[in-house]
């Protein structure tokens, strides 16, 4: 079971990381996932060169034009080029994934780590709170946040970030409990290590691999949730080329211009698939035995 964690020793980290990438590329799920994610990142970074038109420019082509040589994904009801909008949408989608997971992973990690390590009443209270948040489900917490912060894409990102904190807290907590049970943890205490040393030198490096897997899968959940909120009109606002929002505005023209619905939808699906496969791939490489539920 190779380990990827950012070990504190520089010596053969290089060797270990290289080994990881080699094995990741070997497994089919990992490979496909990695390719999709890399294409998404490339599209987002080089959107300006890839997109033939300005995504916001109305009348770039005739209205409601089916996909053609000039307009690969066709045009929408304002004559905007859908391919350019989907390409620029990649940039927003990546932002959503990274920011939402950033918020939820860090806070969830902290919460889970403190609850798991402290044990006793702190653990019982914190995890009871996490269970309460769980019974709200992520979308209800997101709605509550939006009701407070007001609608909009940035608020949606923050809302989704906050909404998935309980999930990461619970995962971290369960991993911490498993690692705490292992003798090497007790050995650390027996050696006289203080709390800080125990957490950052012994516990964290062993928790991080699972979180990398969960984080990658988390990006796909965040992208799905954000697209859902925008689909409901609570996330992205006109004229942002966010895929979920494009999907909702395609609803009125579903019979006349189905391409307006098909391309943004498949873009979301492929992105989510990419991150799911990458997450599964990383998990297979990291810990083939432990099939993370």
């Amino acid at each position, binding site marked *: 079971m190779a380990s990827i964690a950012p070990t504190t020793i520089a010596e053969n980290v290089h060797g270990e990381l290289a080994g990881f990438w080699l094995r990741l590329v070997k497994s089919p799920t990992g490979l496909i996932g990695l390719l999709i994610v890399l294409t998404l990142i490339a599209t987002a970074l080089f959107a300006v060169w890839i997109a033939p038109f300005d995504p916001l420019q109305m009348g770039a082509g005739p209205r409601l034009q089916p996909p053609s040589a000039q307009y690969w994904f066709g045009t929408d009801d304002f004559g905007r080029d859908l391919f350019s909008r989907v390409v620029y949408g990649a940039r927003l989608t990546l932002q959503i994934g990274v920011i939402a997971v950033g918020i939820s992973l860090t806070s969830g990690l902290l919460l889970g780590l403190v609850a798991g390590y402290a044990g006793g009443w702190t653990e019982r209270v914190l995890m009871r709170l996490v269970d309460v948040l769980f019974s709200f489900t992520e979308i209800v917490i997101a709605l509550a946040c939006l009701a407070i912060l007001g609608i909009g894409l940035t608020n949606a990102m923050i809302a989704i970030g906050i909404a998935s904190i309980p999930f990461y807290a619970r995962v971290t907590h369960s991993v911490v409990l498993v690692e705490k049970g292992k003798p090497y943890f007790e*050995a650390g205490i027996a*050696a006289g*290590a203080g709390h800080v040393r125990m957490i950052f*030198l012994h516990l964290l490096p062993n928790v991080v691999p699972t979180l990398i897997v969960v984080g990658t899968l988390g990006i796909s959940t965040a992208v799905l949730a954000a697209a859902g909120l925008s689909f409901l009109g609570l996330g992205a606002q006109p004229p942002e080329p966010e895929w979920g929002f494009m999907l909702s505005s395609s609803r009125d023209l579903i019979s006349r211009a189905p391409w307006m619905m098909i391309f943004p939808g498949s873009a979301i699906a492929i992105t989510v698939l990419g991150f799911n496969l990458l997450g599964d791939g990383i998990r297979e490489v990291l810990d083939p035995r432990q099939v993370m539920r």
Partner: protein
Amino acid sequence: MTAGHTMSGRPTAVSDCILRVENLSISFGRGRSKNQAVQKLTYRLAAGETLAIVGESGSGKSVSSMALLGLLPAGQALVESGEAWFEGRDLLAMSEAEITHLRGDRIAMIFQEPMTSLNPVLTIGRQLTEGLVVHKGMSQREAEARAIEMIELVRLSDAASRLRQYPHELSGGMRQRIMIAMAMASDPAILIADEPTTALDVTVQAQILDLMRDLKRDFDTSIILITHDMGVVAEMADRVVVMHRGRKVEDGPVERIFVAPAEDYTKSLLAAVPRLGRAAGPPAVTSDIEPADDGSVLVRARDLSKRFRSGGWFSRDEGVLAMDEIGFDLAPGETLALVGESGSGKSTTGRAILRLIEVDEGEILIGNRDVRKLGQASLRGARRTMQMIFQDPFASLNPRMSAGRLVMEPMVIHGVASGSELEDRTVELLRRVGLEADHMRRFPHEFSGGQRQRICIARALGPGPKLIVADEPTSALDVSVQAQVLDLLLELQQSLGLAFLFISHDMAVVEEVSHRVAVMHQGRIVEMGPRQAVLNNPRHSYTRTLLAAVPMPDPTRRRGALPTLDVAAMPRGPLAEVAPNHWVAA
């Protein structure tokens, strides 16, 4: 040692052979990761005979037996060649349907882990009767009657009510009895027992082995006994097959194997087995290190008690009493062994001394400092003088740190050394425990079990401790590796004057390393005294039973029948001195 136990069940003449295994080869995986688990194994099993297949882990002893019944995982395992003739048919050539019909009826099997071998969500009765209904076509009522009969045969009380119980309501020993009842119910020709008593306490192991011997006699069944414990082999087997890395090293009658082993591997295997009672003879060279006898005391423990409460806020039951008025002294350089079965509280006591667990009440002095009064910070400082070694070599090293880093950790914490001096000390410690300098950079998963335990020891030595609590340091290791580690510990005690609190359930190992022995039972010390006195002249009934239950790796000296032990009436009072420094519970 009461000799003279009449030998029963020894086959008079070698009747015709019931199972003939020819040229059996099994491999796992394919291509580069292929490993040859069994190579050209050939052996015979005579009717009514007990054949022991012995070998260390990874020798292929259980894989070869599982292959006979087609129980190997279909995807990974491949039977490359070989035949297994049983009742005129080749088992390995049978179809899945044919072998399924035969399994559990003509050839039965029992396994090592009784705790997980029974389905937790089905009743004992259901799991006992289903085999009979399938193979013998019995009605449910007939099968239940047969099941009750079998439960009584395996000596379990109120058999009828057992049927309605669930596995979690029984102890490990009781569950293994149920497994045996399940296997023997259909009166099989062969019973394959894969390490049936390895997971049990030594007293329970003795009862199970006696039961198996009686059942073999009553049912006239041949037994294939797979084990790594030479004592069990000597006690049970008529003939022995010794295996090493998938190959048969040699086979033959049990006396010949023990007295005149032909192959070197068998010789080294037998030599490595710690033999209880060696102390009875001339003192062996290893355990003659004299502790400081100037009366100074390193560890002084008095009236330690600890109760584990279970359940949430509302639990009414008062939980388990793990330590009950435990008290002892430990001189510098001395080894006190805490011995007892699982649940006796020995490892809890070890951890309590180091305050890894807080006791409810009692007094602990280490180097005349009251450990229980120390605040968190000063306790951490005090840990420098007391370190610990663990049982599971695989899990007691942080997988994310290299060997060098692991050994350095305690030294860095206590600021013993830094920079290049730290490097040198680490290299020196690694060499001291028999490893090389370039092991520094490798990670735990790249070492064998024995090497990992050496790293643990090096780590414990780092800050120059006076006391080391060793919690079953060798029980997870193969016998050959175990011997090397024990020698290392004794040599280190000699050169560094370390005091050991040695926790073990293996009396032979205790005899080899300890100066004094404390026998524990359900949280109390029932007998404590010098090794010589306690092991050769036990004064407490529980100690006597414990010693009698240990299988002797010598076929000629058969173990006597187990003395019946009445746990309730057993004396458990405070210790009284019956001989110089030899205490027994009144």
